[in-house]
């Protein structure tokens, strides 16, 4: 705790000295009556100005919350000597707003009587926050000294992106060898009926289709589709974003990524992440709750970093992109490098779908005819870009704030069913 003299101390001491001097010089003892009160306040203040031994601790009730949730921050204060006035300022990061409680606030702290100030904070935006930056300023009874205490920021709060409600997820074209919830295209041991075929040596008797056998006069067996897991790679484009106020296309992309990651991991699929942007980051595909937390933590660290260097898909390690994985790109399709990487992925044979976090609502169409024309041209270029991707067999869905992600995924699913059927 740092103690410092208030401006009042110097002012009162100066006034007292001046009054006494004037009394001596002018030979007017009554002037001492004007100076004495100031001298008295200074003397009493100096005698009783002891360190109040202020202690403060910041606590938060949860360390992980979802976007839009409320978290309670408690500031516990205690002092050996009372403070008639203690100003408290809890400095909050931009993404947290006070829902209930006063900040800043001025309180009175009694000696050895702990007091707790509580703030209910709403996490307005996803991100990793460090809270606990508290400034305390107390003063003695006569206001001659100030006692300052600054608490370090040491409480971590992780705000995960809000998730969307989904009924169906995109089904990958191919499955992996491990057990899962996805019906594989190949035949084997499973539940889903696939076809019937003549009995072969080694087939189990339980697989015999007795009706077909009776009709054809020879043994026929049922073929089934096995249930397998899939590999999903979330390709998060962080080269560029369109922003207006507190919301941006990156927020949409992160929300979609968190939703898809949770959905696929719940299905026992392996989910990986590629953060493709100014800083390249990746997570190898994995499954389970631990992987979900790893992905969420990685999402929180995602930032748009301005970067001019050309970057393509070749920089991504091969193990992060397993064969037959479904790559779901979450991109505003604003940066040429990410668009090129998507075409590259498709050319390499990856099963690709693009959820476009639409930047259109964040753009101003302009006021002058020339600006409006430029805006229309830009929209047309975006349509052409989407068409090029669709022609190469990539499902592209446009997703905007306020529109359910489920609608976009249903559109993508329909496109993919049509595209696969056409491919035979």
């Amino acid at each position, binding site marked *: 705790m740092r103690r410092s*003299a208030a401006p009042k101390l110097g002012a009162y001491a100066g006034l*007292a000295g001046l009054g006494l001097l004037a*009394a*001596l010089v*002018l030979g007017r003892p009554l*002037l001492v*009556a004007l100076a004495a*009160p100031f001298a*008295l306040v200074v*003397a009493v203040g100096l005698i009783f100005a002891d360190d109040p031994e202020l202690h403060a601790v910041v606590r938060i009730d949860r360390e992980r919350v979802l976007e839009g949730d409320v978290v309670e921050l408690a500031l516990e204060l205690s002092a050996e000597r009372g403070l008639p006035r203690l100003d408290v300022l809890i400095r909050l990061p931009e993404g947290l707003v006070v829902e209930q409680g006063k900040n800043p606030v001025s309180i009175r702290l009694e000696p050895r009587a702990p007091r707790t100030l509580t703030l209910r904070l709403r996490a307005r935006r996803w991100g990793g926050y460090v809270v606990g930056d508290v400034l305390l300023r107390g003063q003695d009874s006569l206001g001659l000294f100030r006692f300052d205490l600054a608490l370090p920021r040491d409480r971590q709060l992780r705000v995960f992106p809000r998730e969307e409600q989904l009924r169906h997820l995109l089904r990958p074209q191919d499955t992996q060898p491990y057990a899962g919830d996805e019906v594989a295209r190949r035949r084997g041991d499973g539940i889903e009926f696939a076809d019937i075929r003549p009995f072969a040596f080694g087939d189990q008797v339980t697989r015999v289709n007795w009706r077909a056998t009776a009709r054809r006069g020879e043994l026929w067996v049922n073929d089934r589709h096995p249930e397998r897991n899939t590999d999903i790679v979330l390709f998060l484009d962080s080269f560029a974003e369109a922003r207006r106020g507190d919301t941006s296309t990156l927020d949409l992309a992160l929300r979609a990524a968190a939703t898809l990651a949770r959905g696929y991991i719940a299905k026992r699929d392996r989910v990986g992440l590629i953060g493709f942007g100014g800083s390249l980051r990746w997570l190898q595909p994995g499954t389970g709750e631990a992987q979900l937390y790893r992905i969420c933590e990685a999402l929180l660290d995602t930032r748009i970093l301005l970067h001019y260097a050309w970057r393509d898909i070749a920089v991504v390690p091969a193990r992060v992109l397993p064969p037959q994985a479904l790559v779901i790109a979450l991109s505003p399709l604003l940066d040429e490098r990410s668009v090129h990487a998507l075409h590259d992925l498709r050319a390499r044979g990856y099963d690709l779908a693009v959820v476009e976090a639409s930047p259109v609502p964040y753009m101003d169409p302009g006021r002058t005819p020339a600006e409006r024309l430029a805006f229309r041209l830009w929209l047309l270029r975006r349509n052409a870009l989407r068409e090029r991707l669709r022609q190469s067999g990539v499902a592209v869905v446009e997703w905007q704030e306020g529109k359910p992600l489920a609608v976009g995924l249903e559109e993508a699913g329909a496109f993919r069913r049509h595209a696969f059927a056409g491919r035979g």
Partner: protein
Amino acid sequence: MPWLHAGIAILAFLTLGAGLVLRRSTLFVWALVLLGAEYALWLELGTHALDQRAPIVGGGLLLTAELAFDSLEPEVGRLEATTVLSRAITLVGVTLAAIGVGAVVLAAASIPLTGGVALTAVGAAAAVLVLAVMARLAAERR
């Protein structure tokens, strides 16, 4: 010279007002100096060798200073009732104590003693002693 008194008083209030508006404590000090100087001038020009109202004037000056410095405190929302109450009690106590000290000074000044170099020297020494004690305390607390 009422115009001189009025001029100094107006100047003092203007300075005080400027201090409140500009939030400068230095201007408060100058305003208090001007108010004290006006009282000293009134004592010099008049025949009020022992003005009985001197303790009240001293207390009033201190109250003015306290309220002016309070106005400089940062606004951190609405103050708690207990904070306001304790501050009000402190202000009343300090003002009464100031008046009491002024009364003691007035009583001491009214003791019929013949002046002289020795007495003046004792007074000067006492004043220096008071300031030295204050300076020493301030140095210890810093």
